[in-house]
């Protein structure tokens, strides 16, 4: 009886809450960002200014400096995170007595939220903190990890990497589990070393997973600003002032939402170009094989 009834109504009812949520709280904000970037607040009223917010960015040296910081930050953090999470995943999937304990320890940073990680690391990296104590054992003088122009960005990279690689490791584990053990057995019988097996079997077969992780990781890091917000507020001397933090400052400290949204739109556009390039370069190679 009920079989004759088309389930269209049911499909709509099942999908509606999720789709509505995603449209209102994910897609609509994106549209809003784009439209707000064409307006400025003048004496409490929104005034349409066309491309003014974008054009003024071009002449804005703070913006260019911030773009430079963002690109340099990403050029470092993404390869580092992916290489380390691959290494960690390889350690995770090994099988021997007691590995379960280590596996659990590798997952600890997932439970440690970014604010917790930041607070603990901030104290560890302070002038008389644990890190300076440890390097002091090797006779290295204490370093101003978070307060010097030359080190702050790298300290943030280290903290974000500590927090992030466990999460990316999980996805790579999925890819590793998908590679059949017979291939490894065959390679082993052929006398391939562990290193050769990694380069010629694991990494090529892992390509789709690595592409996914690369794209997702770049997206997150390109827009990352919570640790900067909590640790350095863009300083010292703007050395950690990534674009998303510049946008936040614009919108919430200087009340210039138009400029803030224009920066976010630019950031997302650059990100889309980068992601597009990654897909072309990495998928293209696979297609050619």
């Amino acid at each position, binding site marked *: 009886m*009920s079989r004759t009834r088309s*389930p269209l109504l*049911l*499909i709509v009812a*099942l*999908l509606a*809450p*999720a789709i*509505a*949520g*995603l449209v*209102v*709280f*994910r897609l*609509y*904000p994106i549209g*809003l*960002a784009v439209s707000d970037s064409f307006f400025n607040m003048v004496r409490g009223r929104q005034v349409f200014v066309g491309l003014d917010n974008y054009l003024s960015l071009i002449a804005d040296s703070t913006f260019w400096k911030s773009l430079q910081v963002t690109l340099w930050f990403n050029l470092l953090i993404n390869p580092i995170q992916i290489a380390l999470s691959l290494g*960690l995943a390889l*350690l995770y999937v090994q099988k021997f007595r007691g590995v379960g304990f*280590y*596996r*659990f*320890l590798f*997952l*600890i*940073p*997932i*439970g*440690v*939220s*970014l*604010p917790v990680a930041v*607070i*603990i690391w901030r*104290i560890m990296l302070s002038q*008389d*903190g*644990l890190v*300076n*104590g440890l390097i*002091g054992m090797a006779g290295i003088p204490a370093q101003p990890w978070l307060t010097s122009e030359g080190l702050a960005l790298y300290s943030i990279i280290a903290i974000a990497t*500590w927090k992030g690689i*466990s999460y990316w490791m*999980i*996805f790579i584990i999925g*890819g590793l589990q*998908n590679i059949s053990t017979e291939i490894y057995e065959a390679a082993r019988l052929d006398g391939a070393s562990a290193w050769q097996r990694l380069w010629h079997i694991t990494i090529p077969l892992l390509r*789709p997973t690595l592409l*996914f992780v690369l794209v997702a990781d770049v*997206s*997150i890091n390109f827009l990352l600003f*919570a640790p900067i917000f*909590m640790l350095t507020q863009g300083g010292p001397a703007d050395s950690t002032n990534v674009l998303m933090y510049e*946008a936040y400052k614009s919108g*919430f400290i200087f009340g210039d*939402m138009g400029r803030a949204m224009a920066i*976010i739109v630019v*950031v*997302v556009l650059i990100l889309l170009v980068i992601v597009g390039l990654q897909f072309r370069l990495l998928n293209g190679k696979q297609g050619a094989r």
Partner: protein
Amino acid sequence: MARPVRNGLRLGFRHLGYIAVAFVFVLPLWWAIVSSLRPNMEVFADIFPFTAKALVPVPFSLEAYEGIFQRGFGQIIANTMLVAIITMIGGLVVNGLAGFAFAVFDFKGKNAILTLIIISFMLPFEAIALPLYSVTLQLGWLDNIAALIVPSVANGLAVFLFYQFFKEVPKDYLEAARLDGANWFDVLRHVYVPLSIPTCISAGLLLFVFQWEAFLWPLLAMPSQQFKVIQVGMAAFQQQYQTIWNQLFAVAVITALIPIALLMPLQRYYVQGLAGAGLKG
């Protein structure tokens, strides 16, 4: 005779390598735990010059934990639990139903909508935090607890996890149940829900951890801070009581240990759930 010795050595080196890696992951949390269990004056003892005593809680004291609960930290934990659990339950229902619909039915525009959902979870929350603030203003939800919960219920990754799982369920089950005259809700309740418990666990953990770790959004959406969630409360604590180091560490330790205690027994589900998503994504 030489062989067992060599194997033993190799095993030893292997453990040494793993211990070195694990040390890096454990050290910050361990140090935080140790420091939270010391009297405040002793937190930075034994660091300059560094001795191994810095890594054991001697002298031992629980004053930090007593202190933070006197300052109302218990209320903040309760607030966060409330937000995280409502989000988790709502999210399991909403995203589970959507995943079920995508997996079981064919309809026009299905692939387009699925693609849109995948895009929605590839774009990190940070990109939309500022515009989402404008949406919340328009809805009049600023400083309302709904602003913390409702935007996080629908989750593209959770929809995707359920979709992937339900797709693998053999259609025979469904046909058999339908032939027996069961309606769709019976099918969902008696066939799909019981099968999907592992997926529910991994999606539930995902939603819970997401809310537990939320910092930026509660900070923007609740400007008056009448209702504090844990990450914001912790950051505020840091600004307010900067030099009560042991209490600051105690706050950080509790904030970290609650999700870790959840993840530990359910680790397998969490890893398998996410690992599967990466494969198809």
